[in-house]
Protein backbone atom coordinates (compact mmCIF):
# COMPACT_ATOMS: atom_id res chain seq x y z
CA UNK A 1 0.00 0.00 0.00
CA UNK A 2 1.34 3.38 -0.95
CA UNK A 3 0.49 5.44 2.09
CA UNK A 4 1.38 8.89 0.82
CA UNK A 5 0.82 8.91 -2.91
CA UNK A 6 -0.72 12.11 -4.23
CA UNK A 7 -4.20 10.69 -3.84
CA UNK A 8 -7.18 12.68 -2.84
CA UNK A 9 -5.57 16.10 -2.81
CA UNK A 10 -9.03 17.45 -3.28
CA UNK A 11 -8.33 19.53 -6.37
CA UNK A 12 -9.10 17.52 -9.47
CA UNK A 13 -10.47 14.25 -10.77
CA UNK A 14 -8.07 11.37 -11.02
CA UNK A 15 -8.72 8.60 -13.56
CA UNK A 16 -7.65 5.21 -12.17
CA UNK A 17 -4.35 4.50 -13.93
CA UNK A 18 -3.37 0.93 -14.77
CA UNK A 19 -0.49 -0.02 -12.44
CA UNK A 20 1.07 -1.86 -15.36
CA UNK A 21 0.53 -0.76 -18.90
CA UNK A 22 -1.29 -3.86 -20.13
CA UNK A 23 -4.69 -3.95 -21.78
CA UNK A 24 -6.97 -6.85 -22.57
CA UNK A 25 -9.96 -7.00 -24.85
CA UNK A 26 -13.29 -7.98 -23.32
CA UNK A 27 -15.53 -9.26 -26.10
CA UNK A 28 -19.01 -9.09 -24.61
CA UNK A 29 -22.25 -10.51 -25.95
CA UNK A 30 -24.76 -7.79 -25.15
CA UNK A 31 -28.54 -7.63 -25.16
CA UNK A 32 -30.71 -4.63 -24.28
CA UNK A 33 -33.60 -6.60 -22.81
CA UNK A 34 -35.62 -9.82 -22.89
CA UNK A 35 -36.12 -11.26 -26.39
CA UNK A 36 -34.18 -8.39 -27.95
CA UNK A 37 -31.42 -9.31 -30.40
CA UNK A 38 -27.89 -9.90 -29.12
CA UNK A 39 -24.85 -8.10 -30.42
CA UNK A 40 -21.13 -8.20 -29.70
CA UNK A 41 -19.04 -5.32 -28.45
CA UNK A 42 -15.29 -5.20 -27.78
CA UNK A 43 -13.82 -3.17 -24.95
CA UNK A 44 -10.13 -2.50 -24.47
CA UNK A 45 -9.59 -2.50 -20.72
CA UNK A 46 -6.46 -1.52 -18.77
CA UNK A 47 -5.65 -4.24 -16.23
CA UNK A 48 -3.50 -4.23 -13.14
CA UNK A 49 -2.29 -7.14 -11.05
CA UNK A 50 -5.04 -9.32 -9.56
CA UNK A 51 -7.68 -7.88 -11.88
CA UNK A 52 -10.70 -10.11 -12.33
CA UNK A 53 -13.60 -10.03 -14.76
CA UNK A 54 -15.77 -8.01 -12.36
CA UNK A 55 -13.11 -5.32 -11.86
CA UNK A 56 -12.78 -5.08 -15.65
CA UNK A 57 -16.55 -4.67 -16.00
CA UNK A 58 -16.40 -1.88 -13.40
CA UNK A 59 -13.65 -0.24 -15.43
CA UNK A 60 -15.92 -0.38 -18.48
CA UNK A 61 -18.72 1.28 -16.49
CA UNK A 62 -16.36 4.06 -15.42
CA UNK A 63 -15.58 4.67 -19.07
CA UNK A 64 -18.28 3.17 -21.31
CA UNK A 65 -16.47 3.44 -24.63
CA UNK A 66 -15.94 0.53 -27.06
CA UNK A 67 -12.54 -0.50 -28.38
CA UNK A 68 -13.20 1.46 -31.57
CA UNK A 69 -13.93 4.62 -29.57
CA UNK A 70 -17.73 4.76 -29.71
CA UNK A 71 -19.70 5.81 -26.62
CA UNK A 72 -22.06 3.08 -25.42
CA UNK A 73 -24.11 2.08 -22.39
CA UNK A 74 -22.41 0.47 -19.38
CA UNK A 75 -22.50 -3.33 -19.41
CA UNK A 76 -25.00 -4.87 -16.96
CA UNK A 77 -23.96 -7.87 -14.89
CA UNK A 78 -25.02 -9.58 -11.69
CA UNK A 79 -22.72 -9.99 -8.70
CA UNK A 80 -23.10 -10.53 -4.99
CA UNK A 81 -20.46 -11.87 -2.66
CA UNK A 82 -17.41 -11.49 -4.93
CA UNK A 83 -15.87 -14.56 -3.27
CA UNK A 84 -17.44 -17.41 -5.24
CA UNK A 85 -20.03 -18.48 -2.72
CA UNK A 86 -23.23 -16.85 -4.00
CA UNK A 87 -23.22 -17.84 -7.68
CA UNK A 88 -24.94 -14.71 -8.97
CA UNK A 89 -22.05 -13.59 -11.21
CA UNK A 90 -22.06 -16.84 -13.20
CA UNK A 91 -21.52 -16.27 -16.91
CA UNK A 92 -19.93 -18.03 -19.87
CA UNK A 93 -16.29 -16.99 -20.00
CA UNK A 94 -14.27 -18.12 -23.01
CA UNK A 95 -16.99 -20.67 -23.71
CA UNK A 96 -17.18 -22.17 -20.22
CA UNK A 97 -19.67 -21.39 -17.46
CA UNK A 98 -18.07 -20.16 -14.27
CA UNK A 99 -18.16 -17.35 -11.73
CA UNK A 100 -16.70 -14.12 -13.03
CA UNK A 101 -15.56 -12.88 -9.61
CA UNK A 102 -13.00 -15.67 -9.29
CA UNK A 103 -11.92 -15.44 -12.92
CA UNK A 104 -8.51 -13.76 -12.81
CA UNK A 105 -7.37 -11.87 -15.88
CA UNK A 106 -3.72 -12.88 -15.42
CA UNK A 107 -4.72 -16.54 -15.75
CA UNK A 108 -7.11 -16.16 -18.67
CA UNK A 109 -5.43 -13.38 -20.64
CA UNK A 110 -1.80 -13.22 -19.58
CA UNK A 111 -0.50 -11.18 -22.51
CA UNK A 112 -1.12 -7.65 -23.72
CA UNK A 113 -4.09 -7.55 -26.08
CA UNK A 114 -5.42 -11.01 -25.17
CA UNK A 115 -9.16 -11.47 -25.70
CA UNK A 116 -11.67 -12.75 -23.12
CA UNK A 117 -15.21 -13.44 -24.29
CA UNK A 118 -18.12 -12.95 -21.90
CA UNK A 119 -21.60 -14.29 -22.65
CA UNK A 120 -24.70 -14.67 -20.53
CA UNK A 121 -25.65 -18.24 -19.71
CA UNK A 122 -27.65 -19.64 -22.60
CA UNK A 123 -29.99 -21.88 -20.60
CA UNK A 124 -31.73 -19.00 -18.82
CA UNK A 125 -33.62 -16.02 -20.28
CA UNK A 126 -31.45 -12.92 -20.57
CA UNK A 127 -32.57 -9.92 -18.49
CA UNK A 128 -29.98 -7.61 -19.87
CA UNK A 129 -26.41 -8.07 -21.16
CA UNK A 130 -24.81 -10.63 -18.82
CA UNK A 131 -27.72 -10.76 -16.36
CA UNK A 132 -29.96 -13.82 -16.63
CA UNK A 133 -33.08 -14.88 -14.78
CA UNK A 134 -32.28 -18.06 -12.86
CA UNK A 135 -35.81 -18.54 -11.48
CA UNK A 136 -36.06 -21.98 -13.04
CA UNK A 137 -33.03 -23.21 -11.04
CA UNK A 138 -34.73 -22.10 -7.82
CA UNK A 139 -38.06 -23.50 -8.94
CA UNK A 140 -36.29 -26.85 -9.27
CA UNK A 141 -35.26 -26.60 -5.61
CA UNK A 142 -38.91 -26.09 -4.69
CA UNK A 143 -39.83 -29.14 -6.78
CA UNK A 144 -37.59 -31.36 -4.64
CA UNK A 145 -38.41 -29.48 -1.40
CA UNK A 146 -34.75 -28.67 -0.80
CA UNK A 147 -35.14 -27.63 2.83
CA UNK A 148 -35.51 -29.03 6.32
CA UNK A 149 -39.14 -28.83 7.43
CA UNK A 150 -39.28 -26.70 10.57
CA UNK A 151 -42.61 -25.00 11.03
CA UNK A 152 -42.35 -24.23 14.72
CA UNK A 153 -45.33 -26.38 15.65
CA UNK A 154 -43.36 -28.89 17.68
CA UNK A 155 -40.29 -28.74 19.90
CA UNK A 156 -37.25 -30.01 18.04
CA UNK A 157 -35.35 -30.84 21.21
CA UNK A 158 -31.61 -31.14 21.00
CA UNK A 159 -31.68 -31.83 17.27
CA UNK A 160 -30.57 -34.94 15.43
CA UNK A 161 -27.05 -36.31 15.82
CA UNK A 162 -25.00 -36.79 12.72
CA UNK A 163 -22.22 -39.29 12.16
CA UNK A 164 -18.91 -37.99 10.82
CA UNK A 165 -19.42 -40.14 7.71
CA UNK A 166 -22.77 -38.56 6.83
CA UNK A 167 -21.42 -35.16 7.72
CA UNK A 168 -18.56 -35.65 5.27
CA UNK A 169 -20.91 -36.65 2.48
CA UNK A 170 -23.36 -33.87 3.21
CA UNK A 171 -20.73 -31.16 3.55
CA UNK A 172 -19.64 -31.62 -0.06
CA UNK A 173 -23.25 -31.41 -1.25
CA UNK A 174 -24.03 -28.44 0.98
CA UNK A 175 -21.60 -26.24 -0.92
CA UNK A 176 -23.99 -25.94 -3.87
CA UNK A 177 -24.87 -22.29 -4.53
CA UNK A 178 -27.37 -22.94 -7.37
CA UNK A 179 -25.10 -20.97 -9.67
CA UNK A 180 -26.29 -22.79 -12.77
CA UNK A 181 -22.94 -23.99 -14.19
CA UNK A 182 -24.12 -27.62 -14.18
CA UNK A 183 -27.30 -26.58 -16.02
CA UNK A 184 -25.44 -24.53 -18.61
CA UNK A 185 -23.21 -27.51 -19.40
CA UNK A 186 -26.03 -30.09 -19.42
CA UNK A 187 -27.25 -31.26 -22.85
CA UNK A 188 -30.57 -32.34 -21.29
CA UNK A 189 -31.32 -28.95 -19.74
CA UNK A 190 -32.45 -26.44 -22.33
CA UNK A 191 -33.77 -22.89 -22.37
CA UNK A 192 -37.41 -22.90 -21.28
CA UNK A 193 -38.82 -19.39 -20.87
CA UNK A 194 -42.33 -20.66 -20.08
CA UNK A 195 -42.66 -21.27 -16.31
CA UNK A 196 -45.68 -23.53 -16.94
CA UNK A 197 -43.33 -26.08 -18.54
CA UNK A 198 -40.79 -26.05 -15.69
CA UNK A 199 -42.69 -28.60 -13.63
CA UNK A 200 -42.13 -31.31 -16.26
CA UNK A 201 -38.83 -30.29 -17.88
CA UNK A 202 -35.49 -31.65 -16.70
CA UNK A 203 -34.87 -30.61 -13.14
CA UNK A 204 -31.06 -30.45 -13.35
CA UNK A 205 -28.13 -31.92 -11.47
CA UNK A 206 -28.10 -29.29 -8.72
CA UNK A 207 -31.65 -30.11 -7.58
CA UNK A 208 -31.04 -33.87 -7.69
CA UNK A 209 -27.99 -33.36 -5.51
CA UNK A 210 -29.91 -31.12 -3.10
CA UNK A 211 -32.64 -33.76 -2.81
CA UNK A 212 -29.90 -36.18 -1.74
CA UNK A 213 -28.49 -33.63 0.73
CA UNK A 214 -31.81 -33.17 2.49
CA UNK A 215 -32.78 -36.85 2.35
CA UNK A 216 -29.57 -37.53 4.26
CA UNK A 217 -30.59 -35.04 6.97
CA UNK A 218 -32.43 -36.70 9.82
CA UNK A 219 -35.15 -34.09 10.10
CA UNK A 220 -35.10 -33.41 6.37
CA UNK A 221 -35.68 -37.10 5.65
CA UNK A 222 -39.26 -36.73 6.90
CA UNK A 223 -39.97 -35.48 3.38
CA UNK A 224 -37.78 -38.08 1.64
CA UNK A 225 -40.74 -39.73 -0.10
CA UNK A 226 -41.99 -36.39 -1.46
CA UNK A 227 -38.55 -35.64 -2.89
CA UNK A 228 -38.33 -39.07 -4.50
CA UNK A 229 -41.80 -38.63 -5.99
CA UNK A 230 -40.67 -35.35 -7.54
CA UNK A 231 -37.63 -37.08 -9.01
CA UNK A 232 -39.74 -40.01 -10.30
CA UNK A 233 -41.95 -37.86 -12.50
CA UNK A 234 -41.36 -36.30 -15.93
CA UNK A 235 -38.20 -34.21 -15.98
CA UNK A 236 -36.87 -36.16 -13.01
CA UNK A 237 -33.74 -38.20 -12.52
CA UNK A 238 -34.43 -40.52 -15.48
CA UNK A 239 -34.10 -37.58 -17.90
CA UNK A 240 -30.38 -37.43 -17.12
CA UNK A 241 -28.44 -38.49 -20.21
CA UNK A 242 -25.22 -39.31 -18.34
CA UNK A 243 -23.18 -36.78 -20.26
CA UNK A 244 -21.36 -36.05 -16.97
CA UNK A 245 -20.64 -32.47 -18.00
CA UNK A 246 -22.16 -31.21 -14.74
CA UNK A 247 -19.49 -32.67 -12.52
CA UNK A 248 -16.76 -31.30 -14.80
CA UNK A 249 -17.93 -27.68 -14.60
CA UNK A 250 -19.09 -27.55 -10.98
CA UNK A 251 -17.01 -24.78 -9.36
CA UNK A 252 -17.41 -26.44 -5.96
CA UNK A 253 -16.41 -29.89 -7.25
CA UNK A 254 -19.61 -31.38 -5.89
CA UNK A 255 -19.87 -35.09 -6.80
CA UNK A 256 -23.00 -34.45 -8.88
CA UNK A 257 -22.82 -37.71 -10.83
CA UNK A 258 -22.61 -39.65 -7.56
CA UNK A 259 -25.70 -37.80 -6.40
CA UNK A 260 -27.54 -38.60 -9.62
CA UNK A 261 -26.59 -42.30 -9.27
CA UNK A 262 -27.59 -42.36 -5.59
CA UNK A 263 -30.93 -40.70 -6.27
CA UNK A 264 -31.54 -42.93 -9.31
CA UNK A 265 -31.16 -45.94 -7.05
CA UNK A 266 -33.32 -44.40 -4.31
CA UNK A 267 -36.05 -43.60 -6.83
CA UNK A 268 -35.97 -47.19 -8.16
CA UNK A 269 -36.19 -48.65 -4.63
CA UNK A 270 -39.00 -46.21 -3.82
CA UNK A 271 -40.98 -47.14 -6.94
CA UNK A 272 -40.63 -50.89 -6.26
CA UNK A 273 -41.77 -50.37 -2.67
CA UNK A 274 -44.62 -48.26 -3.92
CA UNK A 275 -45.65 -50.99 -6.37
CA UNK A 276 -46.02 -53.36 -3.43
CA UNK A 277 -47.66 -50.61 -1.35
CA UNK A 278 -44.70 -50.52 1.02
CA UNK A 279 -43.87 -46.84 0.63
Amino acid at each position, binding site marked *: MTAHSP*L*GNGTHARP*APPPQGRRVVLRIKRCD*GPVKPSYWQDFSVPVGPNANVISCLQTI*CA*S*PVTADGRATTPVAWDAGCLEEVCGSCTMVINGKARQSCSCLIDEHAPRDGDVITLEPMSKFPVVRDLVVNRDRAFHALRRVRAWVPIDGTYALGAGPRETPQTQETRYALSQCMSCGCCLEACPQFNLQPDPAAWETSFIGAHAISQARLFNLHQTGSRMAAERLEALMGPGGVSDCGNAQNCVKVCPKKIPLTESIAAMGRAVTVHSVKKFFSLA
Partner: protein
Amino acid sequence: MLPGAPNNMMTNVRGLYAFGEVNFAYHGANRLGANALLSCLFDGLFCGASVDAYVRQEEPSTAPAASIPQAQYDRVVDQETRKLEALLGSVDPARAADPATNPYAIARELGAEMTEACTVVRREDRLRRCLATLAELRDRAARPCLADPAGWGNQSVVFARATADMLVLAEALAKGALERRESRGAHYRSDYPSRDDTQFMKTTVTRCDAHGQTSLAFEPIDADLIAPTARTYGKKDSAAAPTPQPPAPPGPAPQPAMAATH
Protein backbone atom coordinates in the same frame (compact mmCIF):
# COMPACT_ATOMS: atom_id res chain seq x y z
CA MET B 1 -32.59 -5.77 26.75
CA LEU B 2 -35.41 -7.84 28.15
CA PRO B 3 -35.84 -11.07 26.22
CA GLY B 4 -38.70 -10.71 23.78
CA ALA B 5 -39.22 -6.95 24.30
CA PRO B 6 -40.48 -5.47 21.02
CA ASN B 7 -37.87 -2.69 21.11
CA ASN B 8 -34.86 -5.00 21.00
CA MET B 9 -32.81 -4.02 17.94
CA MET B 10 -35.66 -1.96 16.52
CA THR B 11 -34.49 1.10 14.59
CA ASN B 12 -35.96 4.58 15.03
CA VAL B 13 -38.48 3.56 12.35
CA ARG B 14 -41.17 1.63 14.20
CA GLY B 15 -41.28 -1.94 13.05
CA LEU B 16 -37.98 -1.81 11.15
CA TYR B 17 -35.38 -4.01 12.80
CA ALA B 18 -31.62 -4.02 12.34
CA PHE B 19 -30.56 -7.63 12.81
CA GLY B 20 -27.18 -9.06 12.03
CA GLU B 21 -24.36 -7.39 10.21
CA VAL B 22 -26.14 -4.04 9.75
CA ASN B 23 -25.91 -3.25 13.46
CA PHE B 24 -22.79 -2.49 15.43
CA ALA B 25 -23.85 -4.32 18.55
CA TYR B 26 -22.06 -7.01 20.55
CA HIS B 27 -18.58 -6.39 19.20
CA GLY B 28 -17.77 -2.96 20.59
CA ALA B 29 -14.52 -1.59 19.20
CA ASN B 30 -13.52 -4.86 17.58
CA ARG B 31 -15.49 -6.49 14.84
CA LEU B 32 -12.87 -8.46 13.03
CA GLY B 33 -13.42 -9.81 9.56
CA ALA B 34 -15.75 -12.81 9.23
CA ASN B 35 -17.17 -12.28 12.74
CA ALA B 36 -20.54 -11.05 11.50
CA LEU B 37 -21.95 -14.50 12.19
CA LEU B 38 -22.15 -13.70 15.89
CA SER B 39 -24.54 -10.81 15.42
CA CYS B 40 -26.52 -12.74 12.81
CA LEU B 41 -26.93 -15.79 15.03
CA PHE B 42 -27.47 -13.90 18.26
CA ASP B 43 -30.02 -11.51 16.78
CA GLY B 44 -31.95 -14.34 15.18
CA LEU B 45 -31.90 -16.41 18.35
CA PHE B 46 -32.42 -13.67 20.92
CA CYS B 47 -34.32 -10.92 19.08
CA GLY B 48 -36.47 -12.96 16.71
CA ALA B 49 -38.99 -13.22 19.56
CA SER B 50 -39.09 -9.41 19.67
CA VAL B 51 -40.47 -9.23 16.15
CA ASP B 52 -43.08 -11.78 17.10
CA ALA B 53 -44.01 -9.74 20.18
CA TYR B 54 -44.18 -6.55 18.13
CA VAL B 55 -46.47 -8.11 15.56
CA ARG B 56 -48.75 -9.49 18.26
CA GLN B 57 -48.93 -6.46 20.53
CA GLU B 58 -48.08 -3.36 18.64
CA GLU B 59 -49.02 -1.12 15.79
CA PRO B 60 -49.42 -3.60 12.94
CA SER B 61 -52.66 -4.77 14.51
CA THR B 62 -53.84 -1.30 15.58
CA ALA B 63 -52.62 0.71 12.58
CA PRO B 64 -52.51 -1.50 9.49
CA ALA B 65 -50.78 -0.20 6.40
CA ALA B 66 -54.16 0.26 4.70
CA SER B 67 -55.13 2.90 7.30
CA ILE B 68 -52.23 5.17 6.33
CA PRO B 69 -53.50 7.93 4.01
CA GLN B 70 -52.78 7.33 0.34
CA ALA B 71 -51.18 10.80 0.13
CA GLN B 72 -48.36 9.62 2.35
CA TYR B 73 -47.49 6.83 -0.11
CA ASP B 74 -47.88 9.15 -3.08
CA ARG B 75 -45.47 11.64 -1.52
CA VAL B 76 -42.75 9.01 -1.19
CA VAL B 77 -43.37 7.68 -4.70
CA ASP B 78 -43.13 11.26 -6.06
CA GLN B 79 -39.95 11.89 -4.13
CA GLU B 80 -38.27 8.73 -5.45
CA THR B 81 -39.59 9.27 -8.98
CA ARG B 82 -38.03 12.73 -9.00
CA LYS B 83 -34.68 11.25 -7.94
CA LEU B 84 -34.90 8.64 -10.71
CA GLU B 85 -35.88 11.20 -13.31
CA ALA B 86 -33.04 13.49 -12.27
CA LEU B 87 -30.58 10.64 -12.76
CA LEU B 88 -32.06 9.59 -16.09
CA GLY B 89 -32.10 13.25 -17.12
CA SER B 90 -28.34 13.42 -16.53
CA VAL B 91 -27.66 10.88 -19.28
CA ASP B 92 -25.14 12.21 -21.77
CA PRO B 93 -23.13 9.53 -23.61
CA ALA B 94 -20.63 12.12 -24.78
CA ARG B 95 -19.69 13.10 -21.22
CA ALA B 96 -20.29 9.76 -19.49
CA ALA B 97 -16.65 8.71 -19.53
CA ASP B 98 -15.59 11.87 -17.67
CA PRO B 99 -14.31 10.64 -14.28
CA ALA B 100 -15.37 13.92 -12.68
CA THR B 101 -19.03 12.93 -12.85
CA ASN B 102 -19.06 9.18 -13.56
CA PRO B 103 -20.37 7.38 -10.41
CA TYR B 104 -18.18 4.33 -10.99
CA ALA B 105 -15.08 6.53 -11.26
CA ILE B 106 -16.14 8.44 -8.13
CA ALA B 107 -16.66 5.18 -6.24
CA ARG B 108 -13.21 3.98 -7.27
CA GLU B 109 -11.60 7.16 -6.01
CA LEU B 110 -13.60 6.81 -2.81
CA GLY B 111 -12.34 3.25 -2.36
CA ALA B 112 -8.73 4.27 -2.92
CA GLU B 113 -9.00 7.21 -0.54
CA MET B 114 -10.67 5.23 2.25
CA THR B 115 -8.13 2.42 1.88
CA GLU B 116 -5.31 4.90 2.32
CA ALA B 117 -6.75 7.06 5.09
CA CYS B 118 -9.20 5.00 7.11
CA THR B 119 -7.99 1.41 7.39
CA VAL B 120 -5.35 0.03 9.73
CA VAL B 121 -3.29 3.08 10.71
CA ARG B 122 -5.02 6.45 11.01
CA ARG B 123 -3.53 9.89 11.50
CA GLU B 124 -5.09 13.30 12.07
CA ASP B 125 -3.61 15.12 9.06
CA ARG B 126 -4.43 12.25 6.70
CA LEU B 127 -7.99 12.02 8.05
CA ARG B 128 -8.48 15.75 7.55
CA ARG B 129 -7.30 15.45 3.96
CA CYS B 130 -9.63 12.47 3.56
CA LEU B 131 -12.60 14.54 4.75
CA ALA B 132 -11.70 17.27 2.25
CA THR B 133 -11.58 14.65 -0.51
CA LEU B 134 -14.91 13.23 0.62
CA ALA B 135 -16.49 16.68 0.46
CA GLU B 136 -15.21 17.06 -3.07
CA LEU B 137 -16.45 13.59 -4.04
CA ARG B 138 -19.86 14.29 -2.52
CA ASP B 139 -20.05 17.47 -4.51
CA ARG B 140 -19.27 15.56 -7.71
CA ALA B 141 -21.60 12.67 -6.84
CA ALA B 142 -24.45 15.13 -6.30
CA ARG B 143 -24.42 16.00 -10.00
CA PRO B 144 -23.59 12.74 -11.74
CA CYS B 145 -23.60 12.12 -15.46
CA LEU B 146 -24.80 8.69 -16.55
CA ALA B 147 -24.47 6.83 -19.83
CA ASP B 148 -27.56 4.65 -19.78
CA PRO B 149 -31.04 6.02 -20.52
CA ALA B 150 -32.72 2.60 -20.25
CA GLY B 151 -35.71 2.11 -17.98
CA TRP B 152 -34.89 -1.61 -17.82
CA GLY B 153 -32.00 -3.25 -15.99
CA ASN B 154 -30.33 0.11 -15.55
CA GLN B 155 -27.60 -0.66 -13.08
CA SER B 156 -25.89 2.72 -13.27
CA VAL B 157 -28.93 4.44 -11.76
CA VAL B 158 -28.81 2.05 -8.82
CA PHE B 159 -25.06 2.44 -8.56
CA ALA B 160 -25.22 6.24 -8.64
CA ARG B 161 -27.63 6.17 -5.69
CA ALA B 162 -25.48 3.62 -3.84
CA THR B 163 -22.40 5.80 -4.37
CA ALA B 164 -24.15 8.74 -2.69
CA ASP B 165 -24.93 6.49 0.29
CA MET B 166 -21.37 5.16 0.41
CA LEU B 167 -20.13 8.73 0.66
CA VAL B 168 -22.34 9.41 3.69
CA LEU B 169 -21.03 6.28 5.39
CA ALA B 170 -17.45 7.12 4.46
CA GLU B 171 -17.81 10.56 6.01
CA ALA B 172 -19.27 9.09 9.20
CA LEU B 173 -16.36 6.68 9.37
CA ALA B 174 -13.69 9.32 8.75
CA LYS B 175 -15.23 11.80 11.19
CA GLY B 176 -15.50 9.13 13.86
CA ALA B 177 -11.87 8.14 13.32
CA LEU B 178 -10.77 11.78 13.48
CA GLU B 179 -12.68 12.67 16.64
CA ARG B 180 -11.64 9.54 18.51
CA ARG B 181 -8.22 10.76 19.62
CA GLU B 182 -7.07 7.45 21.09
CA SER B 183 -6.44 3.88 19.94
CA ARG B 184 -8.99 1.23 20.79
CA GLY B 185 -9.60 -2.20 19.36
CA ALA B 186 -9.17 -2.17 15.62
CA HIS B 187 -9.04 1.65 15.58
CA TYR B 188 -5.34 2.59 15.72
CA ARG B 189 -4.26 6.22 15.68
CA SER B 190 -0.50 6.54 15.22
CA ASP B 191 -0.69 10.02 16.81
CA TYR B 192 -2.64 8.71 19.85
CA PRO B 193 -1.37 5.16 20.34
CA SER B 194 -2.93 4.44 23.74
CA ARG B 195 -6.46 3.95 25.00
CA ASP B 196 -8.10 6.87 26.78
CA ASP B 197 -11.02 5.66 28.87
CA THR B 198 -11.68 9.01 30.56
CA GLN B 199 -12.49 10.73 27.29
CA PHE B 200 -13.44 7.97 24.91
CA MET B 201 -14.97 5.00 26.65
CA LYS B 202 -18.00 6.00 24.64
CA THR B 203 -20.06 4.90 21.71
CA THR B 204 -19.78 7.07 18.62
CA VAL B 205 -23.21 8.02 17.31
CA THR B 206 -23.44 9.61 13.87
CA ARG B 207 -26.67 11.16 12.69
CA CYS B 208 -27.45 11.96 9.09
CA ASP B 209 -30.05 14.65 8.50
CA ALA B 210 -32.44 14.98 5.59
CA HIS B 211 -29.83 16.92 3.61
CA GLY B 212 -27.23 14.19 4.08
CA GLN B 213 -25.20 16.20 6.61
CA THR B 214 -23.61 14.03 9.26
CA SER B 215 -23.09 15.07 12.87
CA LEU B 216 -21.18 13.21 15.52
CA ALA B 217 -21.85 12.65 19.22
CA PHE B 218 -20.44 10.40 21.91
CA GLU B 219 -22.64 8.42 24.28
CA PRO B 220 -21.18 7.12 27.52
CA ILE B 221 -20.96 3.37 28.06
CA ASP B 222 -22.35 1.96 31.28
CA ALA B 223 -19.52 0.02 32.92
CA ASP B 224 -20.85 -0.06 36.50
CA LEU B 225 -20.72 -3.81 36.81
CA ILE B 226 -17.38 -4.58 35.22
CA ALA B 227 -14.40 -2.28 35.70
CA PRO B 228 -12.61 -1.85 32.36
CA THR B 229 -9.04 -3.09 32.30
CA ALA B 230 -6.26 -2.85 29.78
CA ARG B 231 -6.54 -5.38 26.97
CA THR B 232 -3.14 -6.98 26.79
CA TYR B 233 -4.18 -10.37 25.46
CA GLY B 234 -2.06 -11.96 28.17
CA LYS B 235 1.15 -10.13 27.31
CA LYS B 236 1.39 -7.92 30.39
CA ASP B 237 0.20 -10.67 32.71
CA SER B 238 2.83 -13.08 31.51
CA ALA B 239 5.52 -10.42 31.99
CA ALA B 240 4.34 -9.65 35.53
CA ALA B 241 3.76 -13.23 36.64
CA PRO B 242 5.59 -15.83 34.60
CA THR B 243 3.76 -19.09 33.97
CA PRO B 244 4.36 -21.56 36.75
CA GLN B 245 7.30 -23.88 36.16
CA PRO B 246 6.66 -27.62 36.11
CA PRO B 247 7.74 -29.28 39.35
CA ALA B 248 11.49 -29.57 39.38
CA PRO B 249 12.59 -33.11 38.60
CA PRO B 250 14.63 -34.80 41.26
CA GLY B 251 18.30 -34.07 40.79
CA PRO B 252 20.29 -30.94 40.28
CA ALA B 253 18.39 -27.66 40.09
CA PRO B 254 17.90 -26.25 36.57
CA GLN B 255 20.66 -24.04 35.27
CA PRO B 256 19.87 -20.30 35.45
CA ALA B 257 20.42 -20.05 31.70
CA MET B 258 17.69 -22.62 31.12
CA ALA B 259 15.29 -20.90 33.48
CA ALA B 260 15.74 -17.65 31.59
CA THR B 261 14.50 -19.21 28.38
CA HIS B 262 11.07 -19.96 29.85
